[in-house]
């Protein structure tokens, strides 16, 4: 072994030009593979941090009636089917040991209205119990103007991106109630027109739904302007509102509606079939004759019924899993429990529920893998070519070694040794440089406002990340390159016979 590596090392030094070419390829390949792995890991971590932990959880529960799993950014803003069995769902989720946290939400598209505008604007609404929302996603955004709504307060939180969009629609700059203009937060065009800038502290929205329910236009008080911690360009389409306002806006039953539910016995009053309705309109009686007796017997005071937000309608439930949970098992287990509980909802993975965000994240990840694989192949091809040429040029030397008793395995080992030494030296340097680059790049705070690049970056700024397993993966890839690159030249060199050396002379 020592002899092989001695010969290998000295051959590397002897053929400096070729060694340098192979070395540069190995260095570049290892560097880019390290960086690529860092980007992939960083992206996965960013997606986990920003999308899973910061926006929608690991699993999303949606109605069985929901045709598309993509509820976050559906095509043409199609409305999301309501979920009406949250209380039942809640008890099921609470019983699952792998469920860490969950949050029921409403999510749909709303039209932004202004009487002076010829066309409406649009925004996505996420309706939730704002107290619970903060518990589920404690640090996914910061309030840069105004304050976070108090418990039970009706309000809307508008992201900076949406506020800019709203300005584009109506030339109105939305502010939190009692807030003042903050120059650094103003959109460029708004800043230029600051003298004539129209401001508003409330926004009128009307829910959009393709269902049978009618929607209402609701005036929301702007409580705060928020900035998402990451992916503000994508998440910035989503305004956060209290669940009751959301339901009113979308024309869903609210908790208050549930409180006014008619008791069973009073429902008899509504049973007008066969009643003499003419007498009702032809006299001063307020009750038809058939029900007079019943009305006298019952109290007309409002009945006490559960009056909680949980009684109302949602569109989805975001579910976070405990760390270390086997994802597929949790998804299957949850679907089984929900199905057995006849809840009318199903559990879908976050990447399906997030539609293009999840798809794009997967596509980018696949593209990066493809890039690294291509890099791998190109490196292998170039090294194979160079080493094969080197093997053929050294026919006399190899043939002589075979003549004095070197076996094919020794010759193969010698070539593998040369490639291994080059890989260890140049590839090792490439990996170290890659690690340094992965550490340095986040410090440069390279930002982007491009949605896709933000997904690639795993957040608002480029933040590749390398774990020990990532480094080990790169080392394994380098090992694979080394072996793959050495196989053919080893074979070529192994086929050189002593006679080749003699006849060449």
């Amino acid at each position, binding site marked *: 072994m*020592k*002899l092989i590596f*001695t*010969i290998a090392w*000295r*051959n590397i*030094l*002897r053929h400096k030009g070729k060694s340098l070419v192979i070395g540069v390829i190995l260095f570049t390949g290892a560097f880019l593979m390290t960086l690529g792995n860092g980007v992939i890991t960083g992206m996965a971590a960013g997606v986990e941090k920003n999308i899973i932990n910061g926006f929608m959880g690991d699993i999303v529960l949606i109605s069985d009636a929901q045709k598309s799993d993509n509820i976050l950014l559906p095509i043409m803003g199609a409305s999301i089917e309501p979920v009406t069995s949250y209380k039942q769902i809640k008890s099921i989720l609470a019983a699952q040991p792998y469920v860490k946290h969950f949050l029921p939400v409403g999510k749909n598209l709303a039209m932004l209205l202004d009487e002076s505008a010829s066309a409406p604007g649009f925004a996505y609404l996420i309706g939730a119990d704002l107290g619970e929302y903060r518990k589920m996603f404690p640090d996914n955004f910061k309030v840069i103007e105004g304050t976070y709504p108090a418990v039970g307060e009706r309000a809307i939180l508008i992201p900076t991106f949406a506020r800019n969009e709203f300005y584009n629609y109506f030339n109105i700059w939305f502010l939190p109630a009692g807030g003042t203009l903050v120059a650094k937060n103003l959109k460029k065009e708004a800043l230029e027109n600051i003298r004539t800038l129209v401001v508003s502290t409330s926004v009128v929205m009307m829910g959009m739904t393709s269902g049978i329910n009618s929607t209402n236009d609701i005036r929301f008080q702007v409580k705060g302007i928020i900035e998402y911690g990451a992916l503000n360009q994508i998440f910035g389409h989503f305004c956060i509102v209290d669940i009751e306002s959301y339901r009113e806006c979308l024309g869903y039953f609210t908790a208050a509606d549930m409180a006014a539910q008619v008791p069973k016995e009073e429902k008899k009053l509504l049973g007008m079939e066969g009643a003499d309705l003419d007498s009702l309109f032809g006299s001063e009686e307020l009750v038809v004759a058939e029900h007079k007796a019943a009305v006298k017997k019952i109290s007309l005071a409002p009945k006490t019924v559960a009056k909680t937000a949980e009684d109302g309608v949602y569109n989805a439930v975001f579910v976070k899993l405990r760390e270390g949970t086997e994802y597929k098992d949790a998804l299957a287990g949850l679907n089984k429990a929900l199905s057995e509980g006849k809840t009318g909802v199903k559990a879908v993975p976050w990447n399906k529920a997030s539609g293009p965000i999840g798809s794009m994240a997967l596509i980018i990840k696949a593209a990066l893998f493809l890039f690294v694989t291509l890099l791998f192949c190109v490196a292998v091809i170039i090294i194979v070519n160079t080493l094969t040429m080197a093997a053929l040029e050294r026919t*006399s*030397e190899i*043939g*002589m*070694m*075979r*003549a*004095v*008793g*070197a*076996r*094919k395995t*020794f010759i193969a080992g010698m070539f593998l040794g040369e490639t291994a030494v080059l890989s260890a030296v140049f590839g090792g340097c490439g990996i170290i440089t890659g690690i340094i680059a992965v550490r340095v790049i986040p410090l440069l705070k390279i930002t982007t406002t491009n949605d896709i690049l933000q997904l690639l970056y795993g957040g608002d700024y480029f933040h590749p990340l390398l774990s020990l397993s990532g480094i080990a993966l790169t080392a394994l890839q380098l090992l694979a390159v080394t072996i793959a690159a050495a196989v053919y030249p080893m074979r070529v060199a192994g086929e050189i*016979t*002593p*006679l080749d*050396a*003699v006849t060449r*002379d």
Partner: protein
Amino acid sequence: MNIIEINGLTKDYPLGATIVPALRGVDLTVAEGDFMSIIGPSGSGKTTLLNVIGCIDFATSGSVKVGGREITALNDRQITDIRLNKIGFIFQTFNLIPVLNILENIEFPLLLMKKSAAEARKRAEKLVDEVGLKDLVAHRPAELSGGQRQRVAIARALVTNPDMVLADEPTANLDSVTGASILELMRRMNELEKTTFIFSTHDANVLKYARRIVKIKDGLIDKEPVPA
């Protein structure tokens, strides 16, 4: 005892659609400890004969026994082991490993035999002393003259204590004085190590060193010449 026994050896080389016979039925025996020269004009088949004897090339037909073992039916690994353990080679163009120094070149076959580094070094130092290159052990082949390189090749050929050393025109690339000294050295090593030497040449001046001369012509042994 005969170290080599050859019967009816033929060797054909395909050349396009035609077959070129290099050896056409050679019968030859070589005794242990011999110092034999194979002579003949260029293209007569002497190099081919040496290559077949040295397990570098394969016979088309016939029988070749080296140390009593039939080599025509052996596989690559067995053939390689015979080359390593039984035969030493000296090439016309020296064929040393350029990245190894003299001592390392000489001990190379021993390391292939899995001898310990210390044992290999000891044996190599003895040989390098015998071939008169003790002061140049750290030099690489490129830093040596042709004669010095051939001395290294002789030492390397002998380092494993082979049954025989085959040398294909060992003096062809050397001037006459250096060539003579190399043959002197080979002769001395033959006497010292009791190793069989078979070398080919077409240089008449070399013949005086051989104890036995075999003449080959058109792929056949011409006659058994009288020992020089």
